[in-house]
């Protein structure tokens, strides 16, 4: 087991964004989180990554209590995340975006007097990561020269380069053309499976959820509505009613 969440609560005044949520994630497991708008999906990701602190509850990662640890410490422990709105370093090249992430996660950013280009093993590693994410042919491009799908992939590649054990992805295919969604998810899931990582994917697209994740967590109004295998959970009448507004 890699992550345990107990009775997690986060309220914004009267709004119960996350309300008494408990669940676990196993090693190598890919969990999808679905739910209507305002269900608390992104808040939950923010709590696990340390972007927000909970009002109550506990988060354990590999047996350590990380509930109140800052994000950069969680990152060093192996929890990385990507964002719904792509979050890149826009004025440096694609490869440098990944290289910075490698330098940072290896504690090398204090090195001041040796040009970064001379860390050839880091450059090699960055190229390999870009190859995994299908971006190696655009390594010298600037991020604004990439398509939205490629920008999403680069965003995840930056998180991946920190060498995580658990990766949290907030809507990795939002804003991407429908025809490209599955190609992008194929790349992401292959990278995760190849390195035996655990992952949490927040996603609106249920076709993607049912195709790529091991289990689904359905959230509604901050509470867990259902948890289980995608084909079972997504057939549940209550889940259908919540997600589609009708009993199908």
């Amino acid at each position, binding site marked *: 087991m890699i992550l345990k969440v107990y009775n997690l609560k986060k309220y914004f005044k009267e709004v119960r964004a996350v309300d008494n949520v408990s669940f676990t994630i196993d090693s190598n497991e890919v969990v999808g989180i679905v739910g209507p708008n305002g269900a608390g999906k992104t808040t939950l990701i923010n709590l696990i990554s340390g972007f927000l602190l909970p009002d109550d509850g506990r988060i354990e990662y590999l047996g350590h209590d990380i509930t109140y640890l800052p994000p*950069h410490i969680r990152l060093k422990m192996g929890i990385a995340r990507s964002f719904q709105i792509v979050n890149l370093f*826009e004025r*440096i090249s694609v490869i440098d975006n990944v290289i910075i992430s490698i330098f940072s996660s290896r504690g090398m950013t204090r090195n*001041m007097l040796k*040009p970064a*280009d001379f860390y050839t093993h880091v450059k*090699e590693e960055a190229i390999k990561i870009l190859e995994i994410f299908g971006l190696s042919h655009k390594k010298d491009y600037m991020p604004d020269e990439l398509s939205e799908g490629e920008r999403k992939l680069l965003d995840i590649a930056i998180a991946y380069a*920190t060498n995580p054990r658990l990766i949290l992805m907030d809507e990795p295919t939002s804003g991407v053309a429908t025809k490209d969604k599955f190609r992008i998810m194929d790349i992401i899931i292959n990278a995760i499976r190849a390195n035996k990582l655990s992952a949490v994917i927040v996603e609106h697209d249920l076709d993607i959820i049912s195709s790529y994740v091991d289990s689904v967590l359905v959230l509604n109004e901050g509470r867990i509505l259902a948890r289980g295998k995608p084909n079972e959970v997504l057939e549940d009448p209550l889940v259908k009613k919540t997600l589609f507004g009708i009993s199908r």
Partner: protein
Amino acid sequence: MRLYINYIYELKKLTKILMTLIIFIFILLILPHILPSYYIIFISYALSFAIASLGFNLLLGYTGLLSFGHAVFFAIGAYSVALIARYLPNIYYFEIVILIALISSALFAALIGIIALRVSEAYFAILMLAVSMIIYSLILKFYTITRGSDGLPVPIPKFIGLTIHGISQDVFIVKYYYYILISIFIVSLIIMYLIVSSPFGKALQAIRDNPNRAYLIGINVKLYKYYSFVISGTYVGLAGSLWSIVNMYTSPEVAHWSFSSDIVYMTLLGGYTIFLGPVLGAIIYTLIKLYTVIFTQYWLLASGIIILIISLLFPEGLGGAFLRAYKFLAPLTIKRERKEIREKNRRLR
């Protein structure tokens, strides 16, 4: 094999940079033989300003922080030299005063940085302006020590193991000091290049582009901004100390906000997105001042108009414009470079 090829490629790139640097040094060294001493003094001014702009650009161009009060470090460097010359003449050796100027500006930056970097970007710019104006006022008010608006003279310093006497300050600058300045400028340039191209420099660029993401990939944003601020302040302090010897005199105006804006101008004029942009900006800015002073009594107005026109025509700075012109005028060079990259990629595959 792949690592080896990459290493060779990087060495080739470094060789190119070194060759450019050697040509630049060569030009600087032959200038005293072809130009009147008046110009050499102005180039000496430009070299001091270039060191200040280089330091300032670490903060603006590489860390994304705009300061309107960097003149304060320049003043600390300049006054360190002048005060030692006046009150501690026994230790008025060039090597010692430069060391003290470096230490005092670094310590002051370290102290101010603790306070100034607690506020957001816009307030940081204003807070630095306030700090520089406080120091400006203190220099004016402590007349008995600083001689207020009268300023302090800066005589020719002694050198450890070398005696220079019986020459005028102008001759000292042209015959000796110019070469010392070139050496210090080159060393400063190399150190700054190493800093900005190092993993530390890359982390600063990440902070400039996206501080939240930088934090989330494990970069200690506040601490790195602080380091950048201290290094930047130390560079500007060094520039102030070197400048005071060229100028033979220092006055409170070097701590005034308008002088801070001169440093900002130089950096923007040359182009803050290019490593050598601020150096170019400092040289052009000094030249504009030199020629407008020669040709008109309204030199402030004239230099202002010229700088305005340049800024409007070349929003990326003159460095950006030169780079664009180079790309336009040298398609063959670019073709060759692209061929080299293709060749390298082919070998890697």
